[in-house]
């Protein structure tokens, strides 16, 4: 099998790393080789975050090169645009439609582009927007945006949905199990 390259982008604090963990654990549970990598260091919230998950029979480098991703999952529209060049031509983009201001915009030093979704639609990609925050709130917790996003890409992954669901169940705690199950299902239906 060819290596399946996933890039997950978002804003620090949104749970990009937990979503990456779910996909990596699911690949392992499916008997595949997997490498997952993100750059984290600064604990502060609000910075741009990017994570890679590579799935295949044998995976060497932990890094996805621009122009080679099969799937880009973005937790925020501007971040989708920032990393859209990671997609291979015709690759798939699933993004959360709820925007978060970068600090530069919050400080009045820059303007959040009004045409982000138009630019995404114009790119050479199969793109799809999800109202992840409202789905997460319906599931019981606004923080479950990451599980909504995982749910929304399940059908595109070279992984069985039952395996992903089982992994999410295992890593969730207490009330989180129910919320995350609803978030996954809500994302899958979106």
């Amino acid at each position, binding site marked *: 099998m060819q290596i399946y390259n996933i890039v997950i982008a978002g804003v620090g604090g949104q749970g990009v790393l937990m979503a990456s963990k779910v996909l990596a654990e699911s690949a392992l549970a499916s008997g595949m080789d997997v490498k997952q*990598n993100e750059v984290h260091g600064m*604990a502060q919230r609000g910075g741009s975050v990017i994570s890679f998950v590579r799935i295949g029979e044998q995976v060497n480098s932990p890094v996805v090169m621009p122009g080679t991703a099969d799937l880009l999952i973005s937790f925020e529209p501007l971040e989708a645009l920032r990393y859209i060049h990671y997609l291979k031509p015709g690759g798939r983009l699933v993004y959360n439609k709820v925007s978060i201001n970068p600090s530069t915009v*919050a400080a009045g030093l820059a303007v959040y582009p009004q045409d982000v979704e138009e630019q995404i639609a114009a790119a050479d990609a199969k793109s799809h927007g999800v109202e992840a925050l409202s789905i997460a709130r319906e599931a019981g917790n606004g923080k479950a945006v990451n599980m909504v996003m995982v749910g929304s890409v399940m059908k595109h992954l070279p992984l069985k949905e039952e395996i992903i669901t089982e992994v999410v169940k295992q890593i969730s705690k207490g009330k989180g199990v129910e919320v995350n199950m609803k978030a996954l299902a809500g994302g899958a239906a979106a």
Partner: protein
Amino acid sequence: MKKIISGNEAIALGFGDSGGVFASGYPGTPSTETLEEVARLGDVYCEWAPNEKVALESVIGGSIAGGRSLSTMKHVGVNVAADALLTLTYTGVNAGLILMVSDDPGMHSSQNEQDSRNYAKFAKVPMLDPSDSQEAYDMVRAGFEISEEFDTPLMLRTTTRISHAKGVVVPGEKITPKIGEWVKDVPKYVMLPNFGKLKHIEVEARLLKLQEFAETTPLNRIEMADTELGIITSGVAYQHVREACPNASILKLGLVHPLPEQKIREFAGSVKRLMIVEEMDAIFEEQIRAMGIDVEIGKNKLPLCGEINADIIRAALGESEGVVATPVEGLPQRPPVFCPSCAHRGLFTILSKLKVFVSGDIGCYTLGALPPMGAMHSVIDMGASISAAHGMAKVNAIAGRDEKPVAVIGDSTFFHSGITGLLSMAYNAGNALVIIMDNRTTGMTGGQENPGSGVTLQGVPTRQVEIAPLVKALGIDNVAELNAYDLKETEAAIKKGLETPGPYVLIDKNPCILRYKIRKPAIKVDQENCTGCRACLKVACMALGLTASGDKQKVRVDPNVCNGCGVCAQMCKFDAMHAIEGENNANL
């Protein structure tokens, strides 16, 4: 059982499974999680030291007392620990001793881009360089065996893409710790010149023996394929090489110091073209060229700065695959910022307003240097805020400039290296305002415990060191408290500190809201009262933004992000910002 874990987790697990007894380190990206994971093992003793020198010295003691010991730190931490390391190499060890060091090529979260392989050469110690999580796990055990067999400390080096990349690991058998005897051996452990002279001779002889070992150990392996191109590489660069050149022959070095000269000659002789792929410095290349071996592609085509990847290797070989995808231009940047309701925000709002020279330090507060605050004017290394401010004040006095510098330092950095700087300021009649942001945690690296936290790495309640009495004991008379959430009070306190001659210390004791999960009701903007003057935006909070439409843009607070500190509301002259009673919407 198979696990998918990061290089850091693998090293922690490897330590537990290799009979590890004692671990000590100081947080530093990308090394931090290693010691946190050792703590999670539950059955191995570990602790945070106040700095890397103390950490390494403590594990030297652990080794002398007979327990396999591990010290963890980031690359710049080794600079702090180097004094111990450069003599530890003379004494050697009793039980095995590993110094794990994490480099950060690309400077994802560091102030410089240091190649720690230089330290292995400098200290004449063996160094292992894993290329994935499995090797990181395996090399802990191999490292202890080498350390004990050759009576040497061993450096285990990772880079960000090893420490933080997750891969599949199959753990080996767990060894039960065996603690050796605690032996008095004066010529071995007392480095007086007479003993040291003999030890230096032993170190040189040891290096020759390690060279012989390097020739035969499976840690260095040749993967013969097409003989047209041969590549010598190590660490994560090996993975990029496999990706970029699937048909090339490879000499993969696991033991990267000392180098196996015969093996390298044999490999170079068996391929037509020789390439060396190493991140950062030309350490292999310089040594291999010194052997008189022809290197066709090395640092003449590959960068000395930043990370290497498959595309860069292909380009160096002249095999670039057409147009490389380029990012969309002109998008607003999204740099990390102070968390919503972080206490640093109020402090830097005032420092920015007062336009003083701020001598900064390493921590979350370093972000005060970025726009729109722009209120930090030098950052060098841990502790330099205080000592550099002292030097500035001395030269200012000689120049007749009547301006007092301000040093800003966090609690963990103060414990690490700020105490001695302040001691010097007291002793040498200095003249600076020192602001200690004591949030009771090591924030930038994710909220690790420190001597001011009142709890140890393993969660045991302990003495909480108070900073004010410590500062007074160092010889500073003027010590006052600060509440950076109150802008007026903060401005007055800083002005008083600047006007009072001599050393003056302000201590803010507001805890880290992220580490201690402090939540407050969000702020709401009254759109009637808001005039769109943008005064509040100066606090640089990601919860704030301008409304997109309307005649005049007004400010809006994102209730999903706001954590209700109210610093922005204190900037408002039109009574437009208030807390939403009883609500708490913060979800970031």
